[in-house]
């Protein structure tokens, strides 16, 4: 699509030393200001990804012992670097379903406007999907505003499906309804 030149895209975790870059990104991308706790958790998860990773890309190891390390909330943030510029990020939360299975909720996925359309979002999402398959996550899901067709198309490309509709999910934007978009993973090797 976009570019005629090669530029490297790499992924990395978030640390206390560069969390401000994530803040800048979110300020531009999303209409909500996250509180400090969100970022503190993001940093904790950055440490966590570092703990479990051997490569620079922050291959994540969702070992259940390590989840315990960072307490109840497990947020996992990965930033995308386009020739060393931080241009996008994906933030997920790990949740425990009734019955003990684990699922992942995508909180945010965003890429700066000038850098869209060159596969960075896909790379971020694929990264998370990879982790999910490796770690026996049962499903991954998110909320999408019902009129956001581009988003729905994007997620469908990755095997997501609309599984539910929640009325009046949003209070100050129209339309107020949202879809729950979910992808389930094959549970063949789920029982460890």
């Amino acid at each position: 699509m976009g570019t005629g030149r090669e530029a490297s895209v790499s992924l990395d975790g978030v640390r206390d030393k560069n969390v401000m870059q994530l803040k800048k990104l979110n300020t531009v991308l999303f209409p909500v200001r996250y509180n400090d706790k969100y970022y503190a958790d993001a940093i904790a998860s950055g440490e966590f990804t570092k703990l479990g990773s051997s490569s620079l890309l922050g291959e994540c190891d969702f070992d259940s012992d390590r989840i315990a390390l960072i307490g109840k909330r497990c947020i996992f943030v990965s930033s995308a670097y386009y020739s060393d510029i931080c241009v996008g990020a994906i933030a997920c939360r790990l949740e425990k379903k009734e019955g003990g299975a684990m699922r992942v909720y995508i909180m945010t996925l965003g890429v700066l406007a000038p850098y869209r359309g060159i596969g960075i979002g896909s790379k971020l999402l694929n990264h998370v999907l990879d982790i999910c398959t490796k770690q026996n996550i049962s499903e991954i899901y998110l909320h999408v505003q019902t009129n956001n067709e581009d988003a729905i198309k994007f997620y469908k490309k990755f095997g997501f499906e609309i599984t539910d509709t929640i009325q009046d999910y949003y209070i100050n934007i129209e339309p107020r309804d949202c879809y729950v978009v979910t992808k389930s993973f094959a549970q063949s090797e789920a029982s460890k």
Partner: protein
Amino acid sequence: MGASLPPKEANLFKLIVKSYETKQYKKGLKAADAILKKFPSHGETLSMKGLTLNCMDRKTEAYELVRLGVKNDIKSHVCWHVFGLLYRSDREYREAIKCYRNALRIDPENLEILRDLSLLQAQMRDLSGFVETRQQLLTLKPNHRMNWIGFAVSQHLNSNASKAVEILEAFEGTLEDDYPPENELCEHTEMILYKVSLLEEIGAFDKALEELHKKEPKIVDKLSYKELEVSLLSKLGRPAEADKLYRVLLSMNPDNYRYYEGLQKCFGLYSESGQYSSDKIEKLNALYQSLSEQYTRSSAVKRIPLDFLQDESFKEAVAKYIKPLLTKGVPSLFSDLSSLYDHPRKPDILEQVVVEMEHSIRTTGSYPGSDVKEPPSTLLWTLFFLAQHYDKRGQYDVALGKIDEAIAHTPTVIDLYSVKSRIMKHAGDLTAAAALADEARCMDLADRYINSECVKRMLQADQVTLAEKTAVLFTKEGDQINNLHDMQCMWYDLASGDSYFRQGDLGRALKRFLAVEKHYTDISEDQFDFHSYCLRKMTLRSYVDMLKFQDRLHSFPYFHKAAIRAIRCYLKLHDSPKSTAEEDGMSKMAPAQKKKMKKQKKAEERAKKEAESKSEESTASGVSKSGKKNVKPVDPDPHGQKLIQVEEPMAEASKYLRLLQKHSPNSLETHLVSFEVNMRKQKFLLAFQAVKQMLKLDAENPDSHRSLIKFFLKTESTSAPTTEAEKLRWSVLEAERPSISQLQNKSLVEVNEDFLGRHKDSLVHRAAYAEMLYLLDPSKKTEAIKIIEDSTSKVVQTNGAQIEWKLKDCIAVHKLLDTVLLDSEAASRWKSRCAEYFPCSTYFEGKRSSVMPDSVYNSSRKSNENGDTPNHPMGQTELGDGQVMDKSKHSRASPSQPEEAPF
């Protein structure tokens, strides 16, 4: 040693010496006391006891005992040697040399003392003495390599390089053929290279080259070998061989500018000024064309032609140079090219080229004339470059527009904020600059450079406390500001001193400036260890280089700046006697500030008391922990209060002035402060000298003009000479006056008019004229003010050049109107005029500066979380091309999604 003692005590004495050498001071002390019990006045024991105590931080006792020792046994070389060591430990080298000389008078062949003496002589640059001592050492012990080398080096330093060569040759004569052994190859290499460089220094290039070739098999440092060889070949006028060798060197390191310079010289294509005829430019271009094909990975080979190419060919080359770097995203591109801005036409060409690129990328996504799509970041780096370009050219509005657009494009690039901060600083809004630098700092807390840059901006905005807190983030824990001092952080001392100076806190300002001077003394001290180390390790070329560097140490910019500023502090102290200085400062302040000041003062006093009690404690504990040096002495004068109590500030100033005159004689500022100091000291001949130097360096400088007028006004107005000295002075001035071309039978008023005539278009010169007009005749005040107010910016001169007003000059003019010409109305008229002209200036309260209540950087306004501009043009609504998807769901307030995950 200890010869006069009976055997048992003689053994004890040996024990003291041994304990001293092995740092077992307590043991040594015990032994000394045992001897003194029987022989209480034994001089050598007393001396050794003193020396031992010196190492246990008991200085006063040490000096007493050592002095007593010498007194009791004045014929003992041991006592004198110990006395010398004691002085040496306190860096009193001159005194130490005297003691060593006394010791040698008694025992002329004592190797240890001779060696120690030679080190001191090298340190103090007593070069003839150094040669003498080194010769004596060689005569006494000719079988030591180090003594030969030491003698040779001493001759070299004493400007007798050919003698040094002879000595080295004589030494080589003593060596076996199979020398050196395997483990001394490096040392031997260094010696050979040193010898060759000596031959080069005395101009014996043939012999040097011959020697180099002859010894080639024994030289292990092949790079230095080649560099020396090529330098000799060039000097011998053998360009063909030099050319070949330079290319070999370039294939080893194609980014070494010196190789390129040498290569140009081989072809007769080098000029110191960088100016070349068009014929030569063509040849140079051809040379670099062929080189760039050979060394494809070199960036130097691409960058150098930009310096000599002109007009069209420059335009083409610079575009070709810039493109790949913008695509790649090289933040340092602008500083790489900034030297081109000294050229009269190149900045315009650069602007044209990069603006074209910007336009093309915006419209087509590619560079002009290309259909290769650029990555999205290219536009960002192009804007980034342009912002710096317009900043350099003083077009701050345009620069800010570009940088803001870049930030909107990609808000996560730290360099953007740093550059915006710099633009704000240049535009005159220091508060905003500090806030932006802090924003950049927050984006990477692990980057010391960004942190330091932020600290500097804070100091420039006079936010000293905040700056200290920020600086401390990168110092060792627990030892904050002291640590900055230990790291010899001179930019910090200077910036912080400047800030205190602006705020009228002369004590702390002086403290900082003198700290810089202290650092230079320390650096000079640091060479001491190398006198013996380098001889042993044979790193002779570097050693001699280091000594030469040390000799011009005080001409370095940081020292120059600190000394000038310290002298300005002393001038201020002199002009406002201390009793009133403080009250003066107080009365000028607003009441709220006064209160703050008082509070601060109280806190300081408390801190001072604490510090005092602590220091008492520490000295007490220092004694108990005998021998261990872990207690840092607490600074008894942390705020420089004692420094501003000096009786004669001008005497203090003269100390630093002498260093400046010796080491920075080509700086106008040196002579300007010399003029100011000597006028105050009524040393008119010295002041006259300063005026003459200034006229010599830059006769048209406004400060030179001011000094000239002030000087003759002062000397002519003093009454007829009465004393002998005055008469002498008067006759010298009479004799010298005709030598000043500006004066030539003219009155000072006429001189002043001439000056204005020569510089009608320049604001600073008009201001100097006006100031002198008023000084010569106070009734001409209105006329003086009119001259200033009639100035206009951007006057196009006959040669086509434009003089634009600079912010700092306009501020100086405002101060002149306000405090010298004492016309507050004119000052405020000037201020509002400048506020238009410099809308970002906080000093003039420009409309877009941070003093305005609606500015995002106004401190009274609570800035939002990120210090971000609230109405960011980007971000909110850029949905739609499929990547930002789930953004809107975060505005939900859905109770069905508890913030805490369920596990």
